[in-house]
């Protein structure tokens, strides 16, 4: 059985992709007074609360910049959270994406891969917004923004998008058959959050833990992004190579799973 090429499918239905992404963004803020202001407000509130707990109570530091201030810590925190949220939202939303749309599966011929794709696109849009906000604030920090690093952001965001897309495709297909996945997602996001060193420095000094965590692509990616944008350090291309390999494998696996299971969606929905 030959699988359809996802790129050509998505390109052919690009108008659908745009419409669905737009709808996704609209839906998220439907009925709320502040509307799209939430897109900026929520990452900032999140950051403030994590800053209070980890920056002030635990006095956590990333320890890369000399004389790291709480402000520097907050910036690195926001960058890590923006990356993390793309993955977390893909994991949290995916299992119900196809399950909630039985009409698209059973009533019409519809390119279903568009649905997970536009969910990821909308959360990437939110991540971009909060990263732009971060860049605007970071200008006022003592270390400032590394603009060459900021130019490298597309290179850093691409593997993030691939990983999120692979997870969204794979898990949305599995979610049709195994409804219980929705019970697993909250703790999956917790594990991802803690294992990606979103609010502490990568634990390189603890060999037992680092032996596992050094393979976490999200941890490595977040670390490279912080280095490039905030810490004025060069990107480690060896690490990025590994991250890209992992991201490519995730998206390929996710898509293959989706394409293989799709013929059976209609039977169980």
């Amino acid at each position, binding site marked *: 059985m030959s699988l359809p090429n996802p790129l050509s499918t998505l390109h052919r239905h690009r108008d659908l992709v745009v419409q669905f992404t737009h709808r996704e963004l609209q839906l998220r803020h*439907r009925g709320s007074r502040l509307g799209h202001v939430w897109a900026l407000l*929520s990452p900032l509130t999140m950051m403030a*609360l994590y800053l209070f707990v*980890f920056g002030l109570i635990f006095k956590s530091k990333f320890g890369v910049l000399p004389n790291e201030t709480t402000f520097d810590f907050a910036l690195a925190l926001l960058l890590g959270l923006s990356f993390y949220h793309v993955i977390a939202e893909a994991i949290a939303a995916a299992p119900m994406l196809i399950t909630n749309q039985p009409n698209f599966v059973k009533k019409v011929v519809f390119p279903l891969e568009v649905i997970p794709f536009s969910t990821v696109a909308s959360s990437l849009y939110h991540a971009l917004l909060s990263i732009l906000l971060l860049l605007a604030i970071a200008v006022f920090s003592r270390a400032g923004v590394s603009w060459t690093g900021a130019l490298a952001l597309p290179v850093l965001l691409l593997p993030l998008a691939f990983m999120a897309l692979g997870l969204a495709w794979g898990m949305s297909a599995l979610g049709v058959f195994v409804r*219980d996945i929705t019970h697993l997602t909250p*703790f999956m996001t917790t594990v991802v959050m*803690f294992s990606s060193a979103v609010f502490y420095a990568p634990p390189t000094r603890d060999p037992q833990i680092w032996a596992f965590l050094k393979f976490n692509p999200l941890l490595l990616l977040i670390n490279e992004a912080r280095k490039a944008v905030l810490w004025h350090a060069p990107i480690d291309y060896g690490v990025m190579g590994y991250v890209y390999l992992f991201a490519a494998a995730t998206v390929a696996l996710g898509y293959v799973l989706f394409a293989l299971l799709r013929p059976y969606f209609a039977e169980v929905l």
Partner: protein
Amino acid sequence: MEATEPPELVIEAGRSSRHYWRDLWRYRELLFFLAWRDVKVRYKQAVLGAAWALVQPLVTMVVFTLVFGKLAGMPSGTTPYPLLVLAGLLPWQLFSGAFSGSSGSIIANANLVSKVYFPRLVVPLAALAVALIDFAVVFVMYAGFSTWFGIWPTWRLLALPAFMLVALLIALGAGLWLTALTVKYRDFRFIVPFLLQVGVFITPVGYRTDNIPNWRDLLALNPLTGVIDGFRWCLLGGDYQVSAGLMGTSLLVAALLLTTGVWFFRATERTFADII
């Protein structure tokens, strides 16, 4: 229990609000039914039922033990770190389950609320049941771990229901506020996952309160801090102390939350059916 003759129904202004608490008692059967329905949905639809109630605390225990105990190097006193975390997770899960259940309850039962009269307080109250059942499941797991680590219950265990009640009342108070607010302003939907995600760190679930003296007073403002200390005092024994100040703040904030919550809920519930 029903008499053969239907009771006389007098309709007059303000009657339902004067008889509110009596009505609440009369509608207890509805309360049990709603609670029963929620529990059934939670434990019958999923193949593994109770297992899902266990996965979350189990994983959180492992993660917190690694992050707070190992990476951050927080001391745990005489108790093994995993048990310390689990004893904190018990009240946290009870609270978060009850809080998220009750704060989403009116919206989740929109059809019921907009179609018939009943004291609306029944809905958030019924939502507490699932949290209690989940708590029972996790408690069994805790008992297993506790035995394994060789920590046996003492007479202090008898005080546990009191601390459970405080946790539930705090959850109900906060839940009443949020469920009433969500009916009018849907933005508040976003607040609950927020609060819970961050609350697990602001509440000393993963660490002991006596390690951070400079922030202890601020943390004490969180009513759950007292409850968690109380749980650890009941369950872990040993050197655990319950400070009267901490417990007092807990009770005070709980009472405040609950009375204002009930007041706000009562003040707005008449409009629920119209704007939901």
